[in-house]
């Protein structure tokens, strides 16, 4: 139900190093966009800027047309699920989820109704009185998700939420989150460094490298038509052969292949 518009956002942490370099993206209503890239590509920094935990050095971020850069995190219509789930260990599950509603001074019966609904949504019915340390890793992440969803944020931000879970659990939670996201039609931004996660969940994927956007496209487009050598090497398995093109022919050592591109050095990418 909301549109996220990022324009020319740059983040510089002292010195010349740019964690995020002139990044622009529009996320459409109800879309799930994955920010994919290796460690240090700037994806988490970008997410934190959207959530309000970092301030961009330049650029603008608007949600539904409203500039949010000057808003502190507690006033932004975003909900963040942290990698370390960041549950409040001194509160039980119910209180963790209800805290945001309590801050908004909702009446007690409304709080109970909404918390129960969202607990059912994430599959944790009946867990309200459990303490956080009594939960498994997967259950803790569900609570973190519920905590954000109960407030019906305009933009849902997920920062590598499944990184600390085992493969099997990761795949299951991945499907559940995608399912919930599509049911609620909530605009979502999902950070990960695992391409299978991105390829299976996202409507569109943004590939990041050294703070810059390499390509943004739907998963199959990314796979079939990578725009840069980095994306080609990063997505799927790929053989990269360096050689030369002359007269419409790519050649390297004894191998040649007709290629309708301009002359000059080139990299020939072939999927096995």
């Amino acid at each position, binding site marked *: 139900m909301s549109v996220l518009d990022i324009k020319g956002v740059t983040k510089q942490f002292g010195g010349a190093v740019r964690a995020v370099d002139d990044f622009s993206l529009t996320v459409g209503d109800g879309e799930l966009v994955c920010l994919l890239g290796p460690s240090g590509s700037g994806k988490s920094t970008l997410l934190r800027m959207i959530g309000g*935990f*970092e*301030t961009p050095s330049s650029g603008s971020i608007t949600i539904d047309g409203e500039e949010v850069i000057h808003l*502190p995190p507690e006033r932004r219509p975003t909900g963040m699920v942290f990698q370390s789930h960041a549950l409040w260990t001194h509160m039980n599950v119910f209180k963790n989820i209800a805290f945001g509603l309590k801050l908004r001074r909702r009446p007690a019966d409304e709080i109970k109704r909404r918390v129960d609904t969202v607990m059912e949504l994430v599959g944790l019915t009946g867990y309200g009185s459990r303490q956080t340390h009594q939960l498994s890793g997967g259950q803790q992440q569900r609570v973190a998700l519920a905590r954000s969803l109960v407030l019906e944020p305009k933009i849902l931000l997920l920062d590598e939420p499944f990184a600390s879970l085992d493969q099997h659990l990761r795949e299951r939670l991945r499907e559940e989150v995608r399912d919930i996201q599509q049911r609620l039609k909530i605009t979502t931004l999902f950070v990960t460094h695992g391409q299978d996660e991105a390829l299976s969940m996202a409507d569109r994927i943004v590939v990041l490298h050294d703070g810059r956007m390499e390509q943004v496209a739907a998963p199959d487009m990314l796979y079939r038509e990578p725009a840069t050598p980095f994306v080609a090497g990063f997505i799927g398995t790929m053989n990269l052969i360096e050689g030369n093109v002359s007269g419409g022919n790519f050649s390297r050592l004894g191998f040649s292949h007709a290629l309708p591109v301009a002359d000059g050095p080139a990299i020939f990418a072939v999927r096995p």
Partner: protein
Amino acid sequence: MTLGATSDIVGTKTQGRGLIGLLLVAIPVVLVAWMVIYPIISAVVTTLWMPDANGTDAFTLKTYRFFFSDGYSLANLQLTLWTTALCGIILLVVCLPIALYLRFAKGRLAAYVQGLAIFPLFVPSIILSYAFIRVLGPNGMVDIILNAMHLPKIRTPYLTPWGPLIGLVWDHIPLTVLILLAGLGVVSDASVEAARDVGAGRFRVFWNIILPKLGNSILVAVSFAVLGIFSSFTLPYVLGPAAPEMMGPFMQRTFRDLYDAPNAITQAVISFFFCIVFGLFYVRSVVKNQRGRG
């Protein structure tokens, strides 16, 4: 724990935060400045700048000259130095084996020993003094037991220089053990095992592997003990002889009973002087530790 980066949590406005921070820490900082730094400077100044024969203030060393020419004062100083040095040595001899044992032993017995070693922290010196007299004093428990076994009596250390010595050692065991244990924590099991693997026996392991790494902790433990023992008051006052007495009771008597503030403060400055090396070293260690961690 270092005084590391501050979090973003107090909001994006960074101006004006400096003032709030300073205001919040103002009172404790002022207290430290007024009640620690200022008295030390004042003590040195007031004992060096006093009214002379004409009543005008002048630079003078007369109280210091008095102290160092007065047999009684010198005897007290000597007793204090003797007690402090001996305490330090005994503490190391007693606590190092305990710390070594605790570092490498596991199990319930080791936990019990550790609990015992730490226990004196929870016994206030007053109760310790009283217990000391009840056990080692005249007609104390030791006397009773020796008597029951028909053994000759031993002379009680109560009201001799050995009284405070025993008490001070007892009192300082926990922190010395803890400091040494923390220092031993730096020595990894792997380095010890590697040494034993190439054939080092227990003594060699201690001398060549553990001791070099432990050096700093030992110095810290000694400094901490020296600073505590040199001017300690309660145990020497209750358990020690009336003369010579340690610097603590001496200062107290000069100040309160003799109403002689200038000489008492002189004695305090002299004890600062004797401890300054240990004090600086100790503070430097703490600061380095706090900075280097976290």
